[in-house]
């Protein structure tokens, strides 16, 4: 019987509540140290991204023969040169903004990232990427463990999702889930002055120690977390950005993150998620259709975020890291979609990124001896362990010690993306 997230929280409740009992000045110190320092923005593509249509090996004949309907035509890809193996690559045609960033040398693409015996389950896969532990994916998250290593603060992490992802799960730090700062206010049925009375009472009730009721303590902890972050998040709510963001949830979340960085809330790790990548069917032909729309949402949102931060002069202290729980099968299925596969691409973007193409593209020849494939030539085999990329980000960007956080040394062979 696998351990559930709930089992974990049950065990972690005591420590969790203690962190909220820390003296207020600790939070102030944390805020002062965190403000205007580096931040990591994770962009998670939920559902398993069809990476072969994100970064297209457009000169591989097997790409076209195995994807007769859904392949992106060679003439449409946005060329980005060749990898170290000499394989020509192109971005999906809807990623025009990312091509520009690539050309500026601020987009790194790491091909064939994954791990041995890749899980084809969404839920196990995302937990493995979240915990950085393929053999026991029911532990704390890798970013949660990072947040444990820095001064505690109620806003040191910020998930722009309603559910806080496994990656940010910690025994000591509670990460708030705030999709849009504009809705993050304490409402009252009465006047504003009376609302303050209600808020004061609610805050005091939530801060009482719930003796022998750890689950109540946990719930109260989330209320306390809300009260501890309301005012700082309110300072972000009015942020409109220096560029026009597209009107969708992903871009609004990125605008919220930009606002938080600009206002100096001190948040170190943000989690942004965009879904719909489980493209089992009709994912679109000629670079269009459903997958084209996904790429448009991704590329346009990231480009707006990048340009906004550049205008604000904050690009060099922001790193975006993108991944998904798995890639998809090489061959399309009978419904012009792709089923669950293995390795995929990771990307990093930001003013301090060493752009370029890392790793090599798979050869898509369905030969059983093809070393770049697995599962009888149906799926892409990983070349770079995803934890090596995590390690690089932890060590070289966040200034942490990756072996302790990842539970092993993955620094060797890590692509030098930052």
């Amino acid at each position: 019987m696998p351990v559930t997230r709930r089992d974990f929280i049950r065990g972690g409740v005591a420590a969790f509540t203690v962190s909220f009992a820390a003296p207020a000045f600790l939070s102030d110190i944390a805020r002062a140290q965190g403000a205007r320092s580096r931040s990591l923005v994770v962009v998670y593509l939920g559902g398993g991204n069809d990476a072969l249509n994100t970064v297209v090996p457009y000169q591989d004949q097997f790409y076209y023969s195995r994807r007769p309907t859904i392949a992106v035509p060679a003439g449409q890809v946005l060329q980005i040169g060749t990898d170290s193996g000499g394989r020509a690559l192109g971005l999906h045609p809807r990623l025009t903004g990312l091509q520009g960033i690539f050309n500026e040398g601020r987009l790194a693409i790491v091909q064939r990232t994954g791990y041995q015996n890749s899980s084809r389950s969404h839920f196990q896969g995302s937990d493995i990427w979240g915990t950085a532990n393929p053999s026991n994916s029911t532990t704390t998250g890798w970013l949660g463990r990072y947040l444990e290593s820095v001064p505690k603060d109620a806003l040191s992490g910020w998930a722009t999702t309603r559910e806080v992802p496994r990656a940010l799960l910690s025994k000591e730090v509670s990460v708030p889930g705030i999709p849009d700062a504009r809705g993050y206010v304490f409402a009252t049925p009465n006047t504003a002055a009376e609302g303050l009375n209600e808020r004061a009472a609610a805050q005091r009730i939530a801060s009482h120690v719930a003796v022998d009721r750890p689950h109540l303590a946990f719930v109260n902890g989330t209320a306390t977390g809300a009260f501890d972050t309301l005012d700082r998040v309110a300072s972000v709510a009015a942020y409109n950005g220096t560029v026009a963001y597209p009107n969708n949830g992903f871009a609004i979340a990125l605008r919220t993150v930009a606002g938080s960085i600009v206002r100096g809330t001190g948040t170190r790790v943000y989690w942004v998620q965009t879904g719909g990548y489980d493209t089992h069917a009709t994912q679109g032909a000629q670079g269009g259709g459903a997958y084209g729309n996904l790429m448009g949402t991704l590329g346009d949102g990231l480009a707006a975020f990048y340009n906004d931060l550049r205008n604000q002069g904050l690009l060099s202290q922001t790193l975006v890291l993108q991944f998904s729980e798995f890639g998809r099968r090489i061959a399309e299925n009978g419904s012009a979609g792709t089923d669950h596969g293995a390795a995929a691409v990771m990307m990093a973007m930001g003013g301090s990124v060493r752009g370029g193409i890392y790793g090599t593209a798979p050869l898509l020849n369905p030969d059983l001896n093809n070393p770049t494939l697995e599962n009888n030539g149906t799926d892409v085999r990983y070349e770079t362990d995803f934890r090596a990329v995590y390690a690089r980000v932890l060590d070289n960007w966040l200034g942490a010690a990756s072996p302790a956080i990842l539970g092993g040394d993955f620094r060797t062979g890590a692509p030098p993306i930052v």
Partner: protein
Amino acid sequence: MARSETGVEHLLRRAGFGASQDDLKAFEDTSTSGVLQYLLDYERQPDDVDSKIGDPAYASINAGGGFSPNLNIEHARQRWLFRMVHSRRPLQEKMALFWHNHFATAYTKIAAAAGGAQATRMMASRSDELPGPQGQIELFRSMALGSFRDLLIEVAKDPAMLFWLDGRLNTRQRPQENFGREVMELFTFGIGHYNEFDVYAASRVFTGWNLRLVNRGNDANSYYEFIFNANQHDTGEKTFSFPVYSNGNRTIPARASSDGMQDGIDFITALATHPDTARRLARKMWDYFVSEVVEPDETTLRAAASAYLQTGTRIESIVHFMLRSREFQNPGNWRTRFSWPVEYVVRAVKEVGWAGFSVDTLRGPLTTMGQTLFEPPDVNGWELGPGWFTTGGMLARMNFAAQLAGNQRLNLVRAVGGSASSPESVLDFFLDRLSPAPFDQSARSELLTYLEAGGAWTGSDTQLRTKVAGLARLIVGAGEYQIV
């Protein structure tokens, strides 16, 4: 006096959505076991809750342009919420909610492919109101406690599911793995009991399970219905890593395409009767009915699973087992579940009041709390238990409490009536009407302090109007109210 924690109220919170004042009155002279019997034998109660929609004695609905819950998803949501608030068969709605999470199917994907009206039909249509098969949620309601094997067969044929997990696109030449994988990983025995080759084989089993559109082009009369398309069925044998037949045989034999549907029946029967499916269902129902804090012991799980297997996969066997168990009755296990947003808002409406309150008002708050009905985040369902509670989710609950309290202000003032003489009497009134888990002494005194914040208690109309809404929002928005 604060309302005491009784077995009846515990039962109504767990096997239903809590108790209104009327419910409490109705069960005043009934024993706990009598109430349990009432809840379990819900077929004896008339299934007439929909006929109360529009009656001013009940919560209202917002039916701009005419109420059409079989064709408009927002109306379907209102109908289901209305049922949860007012049904005389609360366990039926509670089980429908359980299955909605277990077979988590989301409207948006279906609507993108088939249009909103057809998608609503597939999710929620009543077959006595519109031609065509019943919607998925009606399927769950009608088979809520019956045979899990039969339910799983109906789910595999369910138009909403055939859209949701792409079964309609599964072809002989190139099988589609979406349903074949999830029927094992999420609907039955779970991860760890199958391998990738089983996924391929399972996908081939369901080739030909498809849909046709009847009366195309006429929205009121057109609908999707299941057909078995023998031409698209893969007739070859399919071998699994686990036994499919009771003699231990792991291979579904090659069959003529006309008999091909039997592949799926055999396979579903194997999955439904697998001991690990029994165990997994028992565990999920433990969490749903008994506790999310206390672990079930091995004997309990084994006994519940064996009841299920011995009754030919009857779901009611597990539900009965859980609700009758000593662990369920043990007060130490009361208040050890984290209420789902839907459970929370429905209970709050039942307790605070619904006169002049539209269930459509629940739409925005539920989304912010993380639970839009007919829109689970993915096929794995919602992240339950503590997963519901983030700072944003908790803030949404506190704000919903404020909204409901403001909406019911005048009704609450009227109800307080003669109990307005002192802060203590007002607080006692509310702790009797509402059902938070017990507040400890210090939290209780904070509530009293609040009643006099801004001025000593006079019981004036103005003060009462302000403070009843404020107090109701504090209680319903407190952590103590979130655990059930």
